[in-house]
């Protein structure tokens, strides 16, 4: 069973059985077997054809190139688990007809150590075997990043996702959150900043006479934000929320 999955943004949108197909052409022109209507894809982009019992990927002089496992290729043999990238689409080549990699027999490879390494030695796993394992197990389940946001309770509407590494709060429009009101000239530019580390967010005062407060406590150094903390700075009141699972 030889299959080709066409994926776009982690979703499989099409599937080809290649067992009885000799050629599979790919491009933007409507005469191809696989038509990808996207300007990153050339009219004639690439072709996959059978030679003996192997399948070969060939780039047909595409403008933006064909990538096999992240590297540009002109022509290459395909093997199970190969990932072909064309524009924004990913093609997964699956060949379950041949013997699967047997993890207990060299699936996990120690990197060049003669003999068996002790249990405390660090091993390196061959990424190719690893990738093949992943394609066998289906979609790669990414561990979702905990999205965090601040919701306006006063001084603004809606919520602001804390996606950037640094969110500034201040009196001018250069800041991400602008403090309004008559006394806003007392606030710095920026007055406070919410910064991000991989697991947490911190708020810190930067400048000006208006200092941020978290749950009523004035902030001096960086303060780690906890879920549902109330941040008050001038007329702006924000509530911090981290939706994801609490980081260990």
């Amino acid at each position, binding site marked *: 069973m030889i299959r080709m999955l066409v994926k776009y943004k982690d979703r499989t949108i099409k599937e080809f059985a290649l067992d009885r197909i000799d050629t599979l052409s790919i491009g933007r022109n409507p005469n191809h077997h696989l038509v990808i209507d996207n300007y990153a894809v050339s009219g004639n982009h690439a072709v996959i054809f059978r030679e003996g019992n192997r399948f070969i990927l060939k780039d047909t002089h595409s403008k933006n190139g064909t990538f096999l496992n*992240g*590297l540009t290729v002109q022509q290459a043999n395909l093997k199970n688990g190969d990932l072909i990238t064309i524009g924004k689409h990913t093609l997964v080549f699956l060949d379950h007809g041949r013997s699967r990699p047997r*993890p*207990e027999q060299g699936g*996990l490879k120690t*990197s*060049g*150590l*003669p003999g068996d390494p002790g*249990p*405390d*030695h*660090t*091993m*390196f*796993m061959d*990424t190719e075997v*690893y990738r093949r*394992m*992943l394609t*066998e*197990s289906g979609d*790669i*389940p990414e561990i979702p990043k905990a999205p965090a946001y601040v919701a306006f309770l006063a*001084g*603004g*509407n*809606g919520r*602001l996702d804390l996606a950037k*590494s640094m969110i500034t709060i201040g*009196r*001018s*429009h250069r800041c*991400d*959150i*602008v403090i*309004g009101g*008559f006394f*806003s*000239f007392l606030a*710095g*530019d*920026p007055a406070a*900043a919410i*910064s*991000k*580390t*991989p*697991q*947490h967010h*911190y708020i*810190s005062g*930067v*400048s*000006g006479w208006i200092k941020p407060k978290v749950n009523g406590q004035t902030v001096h*150094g*960086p*303060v*780690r934000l906890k879920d549902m903390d109330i941040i008050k700075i001038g007329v*702006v009141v924000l509530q911090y929320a981290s939706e994801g699972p609490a980081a260990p």
Partner: protein
Amino acid sequence: MIMVQAAGFSDIGKVRKANEDCFLINEPIGLYVVADGMGGHRGGGIASRIAIETIDAYMATPPEEFSATSGAHADDAQSVTAQHLRQSIFLANQRIYAKSLKDKACRGMGTTVSALYLTGNSIITANVGDSPIYLLRNREIETLYTPHTLLHERKKIPKSMEGRYSESRLAHILTRAVGIRPDVGVALVETPCFSDDIVVLCSDGLSGKISREEIRDLVYQNDSNSACRKLTDLANQRGGEDNITVIVVRVTSANERPVNRLFGRIAGIPAWIASLFGAKNRS
């Protein structure tokens, strides 16, 4: 300008015959690196040394000349400096990979890399492999690295593989390392730096023996130098099966932004008046 006080220490441990760890403290440019080599009788030590030397030499050059060529891996979310650090690890990867292909004794060698670069007002860290980077702030400890081990990426292990390896075994199986493959993925973190932040970089010979909380307490109770010694001694007391390396970087003063200059305050008055009439919030 960030003022720091840094100390590093590396120990062979009690079991191994060679120290394959390598570390770098380059205070003038604010670069700190720990590399934990592996593979072969001598390969591991060579790989970690090449990594350290390459990264050090590359980071000493200004980033401008490379920013144009790094387009292939450019990521909008990261600053030029972070890209520069990433490039240095790419270069180290190429050198080690080339050497391992050329020299039979070094075949299959590789190394983990955990790097800290202090610049402007930011902490930039990059890591490949399982050497931890910890940030200590407000008496709490958190991690700044992504462990590239099967244990951490356990959710990606297919059903057929489950239960075949114990947790301690999975923790020692790397999914990424520098110098094993022609290409390498680097995990980058960039975050603002504050006074009294402490960053600890170590090899898994230390983190495997001592819990995060113990590291936190020891580092806060001692100055950088004796903290390094005490951590190493403790890891040795508990077996010392692996090489032990630790760097403690203590930020004594990070100058926050230029505060409240009068000129800026006066120049801000028109904007303030406008804000009284104009749009309130942008979100």
